[in-house]
């Protein structure tokens, strides 16, 4: 039988009919076949049947017209932008096939987008939660802290002397209320085993400032702030642990440091002012010692009065500070200031967070550039496909639609991945941050929640980069030019594309260098810090805190024999080499300072700072235990008893400051001003300096007194052990229990952990920055690889010709690598310049490293050059391994 479909095609061709789709031709061919068979079945001869079908065949013009009309109709409808998108599912299916066929490309784009979006969202969410999160009190924006300051340097803030606090209350109108507190640690015993609980001596006004009401009972009254009232408020946690959550707790007894108090209130769950774990609040009950203008012991918070701004309050307090300075000699060199409570404790963290935000934003940009580069390369590789399709009748709008669907799918997958990464990062935030990083004063543990605005922003940026650049290959593809393009191949496009991509690589390299340098500088700071000699030997030393029963917190010790008994018990333990105790362990964040008057000196004149020093109480043997050199004189011993001659040991900084001639031994001074009734203290020894506040901080002036002559409520026991210190935890704890019945020991740590804990806040940003730097480096190497791989694939033929004409393979490799040399070089130069500028941002986070540190800059630049060469190596080798014959035949 005749092939009627073929006859239809011939008929169409004869009449110049175009565009009858093959399936229509097929369908009508079948029909004509059926007509022919039916005619034969009816008994027509072959010729008659043929004629019948030919008759039908001669008249197919109406079908051609109908198909043409149908096409026009469809075009018109699609131009009208009908709300339906016919064939959307087909487009998606097609896009999915395209994307899975180019698995490497798709995976790279999706992973890059996911990492960038996820990291960016997580870091910005962290910043938002920490910096902009609200304090958990009523009207938190109205809460401020008040500080005394150094008049010369108001950024140097310190805690407040009680008389100044009272003067502030009397002399200001900016505040609805002011409240004061001092940190304390209580040995709590009620129904269960004794336990150490952090707590406060707080004025009743503090609770008014915070706007908090107790869950049970009441807040103490201003009258109870006067001595003689033994009442306490407890936290929800203490209530549950020590009283089993009994609602009839009000009025019951609780023993704090051995003294019976009456429970008058239970604070609401979650209230732990001022920091996590605080469980006891007792009335402030100022002592005679507190009432000394030179004794800075108290934190002060305030609530702004209605309509008063922070600036107005600050002005008023600063003016008052100035007037107090001129009125009291103890206030020489001192001023006062106001700070929003929200900002406290964020000084370092804030800078770190902003540095991290900058870094992660750069990584997001690098990722976007990479995605853009990948999309451009991919699209250009398909340019020939598009040209071909356009020239055989595909519509431009259809290609646009297909590219749109493909890149939307890529972006969508990337965004989903990014959301996953962000969720994972915020959920496991504590694995990433160093301990305590998100524990802020006044706010406890800050919850890090994904900020939806940030997520949307990151997604928008990343998705745009993948979308916009996907269309690059379609630009300039118009029908008139197609012929030329088909003839030319892809070469025109190559020139355009490699120009764009090389620019992108240069930008990428520059930004990566900035992030890498940030990380490098932080790493170098930390390693410098780890080399700092703290002035003592922290190895094999166990430290543990005890609170000693002490009715008058800072008066003469109730347990004068504490040091002797402790030494007796501990030295009896096998494996304990030496042991002692101190009130303020170095690098632990605790401090206390005292004003003092030196015998025979004139009282300080106006605008002259009074003498002062940081104040420590120790047991004999402290210097020997921590291997702090005793430079002159002697250590304390058991003969330095409570009622004997009052003695003191200075550190070197103190001796050099007040007795620069080196004649400090035997000199006398007393705490407080010239008219203070405190006893004279005789200098009997000089110890070497210790880095007390931080490894990076210069040692301050320190004076040490024996515990037997002046008490301190919380002492830290230090014990040199014969091995891993934490192994002696149990025996030391038991021994302490024998020293003082029911004396709980808290917070056992190795002194080395204390030292490394003091720089822990540097580790988080260093780790994160290093992570970002590695991601940035990876992205850059992908970028360089992409450029060169594409370059090589486009020039295969040229390389074949060169090889055929006798070029050496080594020269070819060099030729390819040279393609990335210029952009990488430009990028390195720009990046180093950028690092010098951005380094100023993090300069205050650095220790003994300049942002222009040549070691860091040179090694980072070298590292990037190396990465560029390595990532160019594979495509370069591919170029050199081209087989000339194959390459020439391929085109």
């Amino acid at each position, binding site marked *: 039988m005749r092939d009627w479909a073929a006859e239809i095609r011939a008929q169409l061709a004869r009449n110049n009919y175009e565009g009858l789709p093959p399936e*229509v031709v097929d369908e*009508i061919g*079948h*029909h004509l076949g059926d007509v022919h068979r039916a005619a034969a079945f009816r008994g027509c001869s072959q010729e008659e049947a043929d004629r019948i079908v030919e008759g*039908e065949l001669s*008249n197919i013009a109406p*079908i051609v*017209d*109908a198909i043409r009309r*149908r096409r026009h109709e469809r075009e018109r409808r699609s131009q009208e932008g009908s709300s339906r998108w016919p064939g959307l599912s087909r487009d998606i299916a097609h896009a999915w096939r395209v994307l899975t066929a180019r698995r490497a490309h798709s995976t790279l784009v999706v992973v890059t987008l996911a990492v960038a979006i996820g990291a960016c969202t997580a870091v910005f969410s962290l910043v938002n939660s920490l910096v902009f999160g609200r304090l958990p009190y009523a009207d938190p924006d109205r809460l401020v802290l008040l500080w005394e300051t150094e008049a010369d340097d108001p950024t140097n803030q310190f805690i407040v002397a009680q008389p100044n606090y009272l003067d502030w209350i009397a002399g200001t109108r900016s505040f609805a209320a002011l409240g004061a507190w001092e940190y304390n640690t209580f040995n709590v015993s009620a129904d269960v085993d004794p336990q150490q609980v952090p707590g406060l001596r707080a004025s009743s006004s503090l609770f008014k400032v915070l706007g908090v009401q107790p869950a049970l009972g009441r807040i103490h009254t201003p009258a109870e702030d006067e001595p003689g009232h033994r009442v306490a408020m407890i936290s929800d946690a203490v209530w549950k642990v020590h009283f089993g959550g009994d609602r009839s707790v009000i009025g019951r007894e609780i023993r704090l440091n051995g003294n019976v108090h009456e429970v008058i209130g239970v604070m609401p769950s979650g209230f732990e002012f001022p920091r996590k774990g605080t469980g006891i609040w007792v009335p402030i009950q100022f002592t005679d010692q507190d009432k000394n203008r030179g004794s800075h012991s108290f934190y002060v918070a305030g609530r702004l009065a209605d309509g008063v701004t922070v600036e107005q309050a600050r002005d008023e307090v600063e003016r008052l500070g100035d007037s107090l300075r001129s009125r009291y000699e103890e206030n020489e060199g001192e001023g006062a200031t106001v700070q929003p409570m929200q900002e406290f404790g964020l000084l370092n963290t804030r800078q770190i967070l902003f540095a991290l935000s900058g870094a992660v934003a750069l990584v997001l940009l690098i990722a976007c550039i990479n995605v853009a580069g990948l999309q451009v390369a991919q699209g250009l590789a398909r340019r020939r496909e598009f040209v071909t399709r356009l020239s055989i009748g595909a519509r431009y709008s259809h290609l646009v639609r297909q590219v749109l669907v493909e890149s939307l799918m890529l972006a969508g997958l990337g965004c989903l991945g990014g959301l996953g990464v962000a969720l994972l990062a915020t959920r496991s935030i504590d694995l990433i941050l160093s301990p305590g990083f998100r524990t802020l004063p006044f706010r406890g543990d800050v919850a890090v929640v994904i900020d939806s605005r940030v997520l949307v922003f990151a997604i928008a940026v990343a998705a745009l980069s993948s979308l916009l650049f996907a269309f690059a290959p379609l630009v300039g593809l118009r029908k008139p030019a197609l012929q030329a393009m088909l003839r030319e191949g892809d070469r025109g496009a190559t020139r355009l594309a490699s120009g764009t991509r090389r620019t992108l690589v240069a930008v990428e390299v520059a930004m990566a260098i900035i992030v890498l340098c940030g990380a490098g500088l932080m790493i170098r700071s930390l390693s410098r810090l780890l080399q700092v000699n703290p002035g003592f030997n922290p190895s094999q030393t166990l430290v543990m805190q005890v609170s000693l029963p002490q009715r008058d917190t800072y008066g003469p010790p109730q347990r004068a024999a504490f040091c002797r008994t402790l030494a007796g018990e501990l030295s009896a333990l096998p494996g304990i080499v030496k042991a002692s105790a101190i009130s303020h362990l170095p690098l632990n964040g605790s401090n206390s300072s005292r004003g003092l008057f030196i015998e025979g000196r004139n009282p300080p004149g106006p605008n002259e700072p009074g003498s002062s020093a940081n104040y420590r109480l120790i047991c004999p043997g402290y210097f020997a235990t921590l291997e702090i050199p005793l430079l002159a004189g002697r250590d304390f011993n058991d003969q330095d008893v409570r009622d004997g001659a009052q003695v003191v040991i200075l550190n070197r900084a103190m001796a050099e400051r007040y007795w620069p001639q080196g004649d400090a031994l035997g000199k006398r001074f007393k705490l407080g001003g010239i008219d203070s009734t405190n006893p004279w203290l005789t200098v009997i020894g000089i110890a070497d300096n210790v880095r007390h506040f931080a490894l990076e901080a210069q040692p301050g002036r320190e004076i040490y007194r024996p515990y037997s002559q002046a008490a301190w409520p919380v002492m830290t026991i230090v014990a040199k052990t014969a091995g891993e210190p934490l192994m002696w935890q149990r025996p030391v704890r038991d021994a302490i229990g024998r020293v003082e019945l029911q004396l709980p020991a808290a917070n056992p740590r190795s002194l080395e952990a204390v030292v490394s804990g003091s720089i822990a806040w540097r580790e988080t940003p260093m780790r994160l920055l290093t992570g970002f730097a590695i991601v940035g480096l990876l992205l850059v190497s992908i970028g360089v690889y992409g450029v060169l791989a594409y370059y090589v694939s486009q020039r295969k033929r040229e390389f074949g010709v060169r090889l055929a004409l006798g070029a050496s393979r080594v020269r070819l490799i060099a030729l390819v690598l040279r393609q990335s040399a210029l952009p990488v070089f430009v990028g390195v130069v720009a990046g180093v310049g950028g690092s010098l500028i951005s380094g100023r941002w993090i300069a205050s986070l650095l220790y003994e490293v300049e942002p222009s540190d040549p070691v860091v800059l040179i090694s980072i630049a070298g590292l990037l050059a190396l990465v560029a060469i390595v990532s160019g190596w594979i495509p370069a080798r591919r170029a050199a391994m081209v087989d000339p014959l194959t390459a020439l035949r391929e085109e």
Partner: protein
Amino acid sequence: MGDPIVEAAARKGSAELLILATLEDGQLHGYDIAREIARRSDGLLVFHVASLYPLLYRLEDRRWISGRWVEKPGQRRRRCYRLTAEGRRVLASQRSRWSSFVGALTKAAGLRHA
């Protein structure tokens, strides 16, 4: 051109009714549609390809019928058409319109049933 009666029917819109009615009982391919109409009209109404396919494509564009390629084992691939839900509604309404028209015509012009 094709058969004059069919041409006239197509112009008046009755050819649409014919095709919809033919597909009422199930799906058919183009040749079978034409054959079924010829059978039901005792050979009076004969569709040629030139009249049938433009009509089928138009009905398909209106989504009254839908065509798809059907492959059965041992048979050639054929494009079969069937009524859509919309097509079924159109068929019902056209039927009632045509039957009242034909009724009116019978009375007014004195036609007789054959």
